[in-house]
């Protein structure tokens, strides 16, 4: 029985476009599900509907086996961690932690016991008398979490709790939150715009865009088998390389620029004589020296040294994706603008190369692309074409 469930949930503000469209999602007991997507995708709205801070236009939300649409937030037995922590500024850390318990008339002794226990576990034991203004960002974050934990709710709701922290602290707190959740085994719905956070923390990740759920799956599956162009471009950093190519009359070959790749299997049969979108992950763009198969010729535009590896931008003859609205806008690598002859006919591929290779900008290079590792997408709808390795169940499920 799912602990948290969205059933055909819609949310519209006034007469504008809907913020959330027909959302169906289940969160199992003890599961950590992350709602991720670019800003404006409806993830925060969905979370706030669970909390009771937004009205549900249509559909049902269940917590446990109760429909909670009409319940006030305080009756839903959930706890929320806000992006700005929302700590009561004039109350001490102790009073902040104890507030929820006090409102529910928990006896004072019990309050003290629970607050001190949680404070101890979160390393806040000697700060109980301080005010939030006297705490650091990380400490405030922990108080916000403690306030949620101490109430022992049915579910945690977290609204981008790490966005206000600096990068290093964020990495640290990410692990802490994940650990705490595992230890407490509390159902958690977590919202973020950062796909790295989503991938590292979630048992399952739900990708949203423009109010519509694109795909919900384990992080690895999302990475390996994205359901559409948006998910493919959104998940993974650096982002997947995407471009257009033509399929030959037999449906066995992919043609782009001067390259012709044989594609095994029946993947492209339906698209014989048509064009498709092609995706390849940067780590699958390899240096071609020991590769038997087809090679793609290109020239080096830029080399970014990351220490453990190099990110190489390679200009390759191919057609860029025309339907830019099908992919995540923020995730596209900068196009080759200055110094490129023909913008219509070339595409920049990002490759993750071994750090020992010596490459210089302007140098001609050959890359190896394994056709079995390519992802294919319909150019009209953006949906992924089913491949042999990752058969997809097309259509609505769940």
């Amino acid at each position, binding site marked *: 029985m799912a602990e948290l469930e969205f059933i055909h949930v819609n949310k519209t503000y006034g007469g504008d476009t809907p913020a959330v469209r027909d959302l169906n999602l289940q969160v199992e007991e003890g599961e950590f599900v992350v709602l991720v997507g670019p800003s404006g995708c409806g993830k925060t709205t969905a979370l706030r509907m669970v*909390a*009771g*801070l937004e009205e549900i236009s249509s559909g049902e939300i269940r917590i446990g086996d109760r429909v909670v649409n009409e319940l*006030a*937030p*305080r009756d839903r037995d*959930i*706890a*929320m961690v*806000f992006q*700005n922590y*929302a700590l*009561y*500024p*004039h109350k001490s850390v102790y009073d902040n932690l104890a*507030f*929820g318990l006090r*409102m*529910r008339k928990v006896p004072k002794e019990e309050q003290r016991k629970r607050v001190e226990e949680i404070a101890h576990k979160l390393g806040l034991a000697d700060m109980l008398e301080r005010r939030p203004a006297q705490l650091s960002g990380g400490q405030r974050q922990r108080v916000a979490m403690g*306030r949620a934990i101490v*109430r022992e709710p049915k579910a945690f709701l977290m609204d981008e709790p790490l966005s206000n922290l600096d990068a290093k602290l964020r990495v640290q707190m990410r692990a802490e939150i994940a650990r705490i959740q595992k230890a407490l085994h509390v159902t958690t719905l977590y919202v973020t715009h950062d796909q790295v956070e989503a991938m590292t923390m979630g048992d399952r990740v739900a990708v949203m865009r423009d109010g519509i759920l694109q795909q919900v799956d384990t992080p690895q599956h999302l990475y390996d088998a994205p359901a559409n162009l948006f998910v493919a471009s959104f998940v993974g950093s650096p982002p997947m390389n995407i471009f257009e190519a033509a399929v030959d009359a037999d449906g066995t070959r992919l043609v782009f620029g001067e390259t012709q790749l044989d594609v095994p299997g029946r993947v492209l049969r339906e698209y014989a004589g048509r064009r498709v979108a092609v995706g390849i992950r940067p780590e699958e763009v390899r240096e071609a020296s020991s590769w038997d198969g087809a090679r793609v010729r290109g020239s080096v535009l830029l080399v970014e040294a990351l220490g453990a590896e190099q990110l190489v931008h390679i200009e390759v003859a191919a057609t860029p994706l025309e339907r830019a609205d099908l992919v995540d806008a923020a995730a596209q690598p900068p196009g080759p603008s200055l110094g490129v002859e023909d913008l219509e006919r070339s595409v920049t591929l990002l490759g993750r190369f071994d750090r020992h290779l010596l490459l210089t900008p302007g140098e001609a290079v050959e890359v190896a692309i394994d056709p079995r590792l390519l992802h294919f997408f319909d150019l009209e709808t953006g949906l992924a074409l089913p491949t042999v390795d990752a058969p997809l169940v097309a259509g609505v499920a769940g």
Partner: protein
Amino acid sequence: MASVAESEFTLASRRRRFSRRRLGRIAAPYVLLAPAAAVVAVVLAYPLYLLGKMSFEKYGLFELIRHKGRWIGTANYSSIFHDAEFWRVVLRTIAFTAVCVSLTMVLGTAIALLLLQVGRVMRVALTTGLVLVWAIPTIVAVDLWRWMVDFEFGVANWTLTKLQLGDFIRHDWFANPWTGFGVFTALIVWGAIPFVSITVYAGLAQVPHELLEAAAIDGARPWAAFREVTLPLLKPIFVILTSLSIIWDFQVFQQIWVMLDGRPNSDYYTMAIYAFHESFQISEYGLGAAIAVVMVMFMFAATLVYLRQMLRTGEVR
């Protein structure tokens, strides 16, 4: 040799130029402040000092002509402190201020809360109405209230009689100082409510809605959330408004003076009127000054509270 002398010369001249420019920059703020400071000093600071000095002097008509007072030490103070009338006036002023300020703050806050609850159209209408009342000059307000409580044709008497709260036909509100002050209280509170309501409402709107959401999720009912989250955040505003109201209401003069045609009987004396009367009507400027000084002392406490709160809220950087 020559080069050393040269470099010394340039160094010295540069130092001179440097200090002149620096001097200009240091002097600039004082120069900018000077005109405003001069006006304030002449019209405010000097008279304040004069006030203090005069309170220790005999300053009657004779002294007025000679432009100089006669030092008599604390005689003015001892004469007013021994005057029962003075203490009656002080008590009356304090009581009147207390009533006015309490009513203003309570009603003003209630209306601010009401503004939160009503629909958008009503909120705009109510705010506009409040601003309209706020805009009425004091003398105009006195006139319109005078008309409303007119003993013969005033609408107040007619309404109260119609509501069967007693027989108010031809009731002269100012015959009895209790009802008279009732009118003044109504007049002053009526005029003061808009400022309090609008300011408190602005403060309420500034409470971060996330805090209230967190409180709602934590299990607080609306009233508990108001008490635990909103009120503490509004405390600075309440302190400022209350101390300002005390300062303003303690000084009430015009309303009583104009309503009673410049001839209030002694039952209507507030400290301000008493001081004015002693000075300009009996020409005992020294006594009037002493009363005024005591008035300032009384308000000093409230002023300190106000100043401290304003400074604390980060207005002064």
